[in-house]
């Protein structure tokens, strides 16, 4: 990332903070407090399981909503409100601006997710009174959620370079949902019996991001160790996929006429 992209990233983060995006944390805090207090009374013996499941799901869903709803407006809003005019008249390249917006939202998501993770840890401590070594898996699960959010942010940013926010939301959420079923789409292709359909289904399933790989909530809840190879693979996969999507976004945005 260049210095100029960094300048844009910091401002994007500042915008999110001033637009009170981090208020979502309040909702999460209330959820965790309520869960910690109530869960002990209704689910004897499986409090930890419920808290981890609920916490990780909430971290994922809140992050997902932020990535999609802020992501689709990252560039569109600047074009629509014409705040981009003064920015692009400065010596910054369009791809640097895009990278900065991406990094800014990623920073917002990172801070938000880190604070929610602290909330989850506090709720767990309240229920369990101590941490075990296996709880490290929760951190890996959170890291995977962040990787997933980076991918979704890149997709939302890509669509926002050439379509309206509503369409961008539809496209991004559509790809996310399809990505959850990437392996099912492959299986569907095999059982059709048609070679052509099978080939299309396989190609499509590899083209869309496989979001299932990033979901290890069950492992985290049961304290099962996550293989180092999966961490490495997921990191590489997310990095390469996001980079390709950002390159495509930069290509779409570089020749775009601003209205």
């Amino acid at each position: 990332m260049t210095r100029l992209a960094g300048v844009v990233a910091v401002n994007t983060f500042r915008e999110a903070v001033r637009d009170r995006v981090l208020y979502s944390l309040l909702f999460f805090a209330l959820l965790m407090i309520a869960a910690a207090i109530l869960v002990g009374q209704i689910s004897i013996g499986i409090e930890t399981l419920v808290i981890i499941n609920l916490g990780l799901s909430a971290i994922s869903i809140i992050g997902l909503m932020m990535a999609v709803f802020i992501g689709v407006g990252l560039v569109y809003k600047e074009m629509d409100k014409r705040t981009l005019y003064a920015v692009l008249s400065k010596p910054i390249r369009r791809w640097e601006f895009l990278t900065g917006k991406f990094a800014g939202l990623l920073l917002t998501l990172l801070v938000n997710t880190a604070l929610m993770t602290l909330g989850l840890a506090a709720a767990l401590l309240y229920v369990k009174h101590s941490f075990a070594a296996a709880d490290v898996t929760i951190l890996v699960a959170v890291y995977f959620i962040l990787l997933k959010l980076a991918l979704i942010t890149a997709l939302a940013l890509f669509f926002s370079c050439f379509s309206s926010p509503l369409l961008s939301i539809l496209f991004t959420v559509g790809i996310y949902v399809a990505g959850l079923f990437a392996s099912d789409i492959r299986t569907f292709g095999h059982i059709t019996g048609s070679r052509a359909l099978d080939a299309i289904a396989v190609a499509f399933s590899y083209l869309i991001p496989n979001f299932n790989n990033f979901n290890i909530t069950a492992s985290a809840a049961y304290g099962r160790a996550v293989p180092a190879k999966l961490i490495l693979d997921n990191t590489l996969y997310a990095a390469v996929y996001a980079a390709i999507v950002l390159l495509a976004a930069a290509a779409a945005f570089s020749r775009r006429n601003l209205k």
Partner: protein
Amino acid sequence: MASPAIEIEGLTKDFPVGFWQAKKRRALDDLSLQVETGEVLGFLGPNGAGKTTTLKLLVGLIFPTAGTARILGHPISDVSMHRKIGFLPEQPYFYDYLTAPELLDYFARFFGLPAADRRERVDRLLKKVGLDGTRKIQLRKYSKGMLQRAGLAQAMLHDPEVLILDEPMSGLDPVGRREMREIILELKREGRTILFSTHILPDAEMICDRVAVVVAGKLRGVGSPDQIVSVKVRGMEILFEPRGARPLPAALAGQATQIGNRRRIEVAEADLYSALEQLKTAGAGVLSVTQIKSTLEDYFLDLVGAERATPHAVEVSEK
């Protein structure tokens, strides 16, 4: 002689229109123009004439269909050239969650200025554009005129050699417009080149070395305001008070306009003495006799009128 600060050659811009975007609408047609180093050039034209399109092309916000342009010898596609130019967009809008000092500091960072230098520049410019008293107010609470001032400050932030200002006077009250004119003239005195668009013609007449008139995407004339408008007298204006008992001759009475107790008539230069004689006979008191000269506005209205009367006029739009 120094090379021109801005050289535009055959710049053309088509915008796709319609659902399938298959049709094209020409917003700018083969514009060639030079802005000399150190001059103030006013870019005049009615709404939708292609002024903003031209300025946006120069700054790289949109891309030309044909033609080229160079600023300070650099092609407009060269983003590093933006270090030397300042741009004020039309009806500027900025991040409304920032205050003016925060906005200017943000923009100053694009030029890699150290913190102390940024602070000094921000303070100086806020004072210069008259926003020093609104430092703590977020831009969302700014009036249109205040945003215009903030816009000018961000355009001057890095001491650019060339300033491109899109409708700098719009949104400003008479005091603000005078201040803007003074700032532009001060920038000129500092040796900077200024290209600005406007449809407020008296402003252009007051501060421009030359004006370029664009109508329906085409350049219609370039020259000093004096060259552009004809200096010949179009007629004479007589202001008088009908004091006598005798009525005015019908020919004069018919064309007189009542302004309070006074009346005003316009006559051809050759008919001046006969009109004055008739007023004398009627016992009217002549208050003043003034030459009516063509103004830039007349020239402008003639051009626009001729364009609209042309059946094959190109339909243009900036959208």
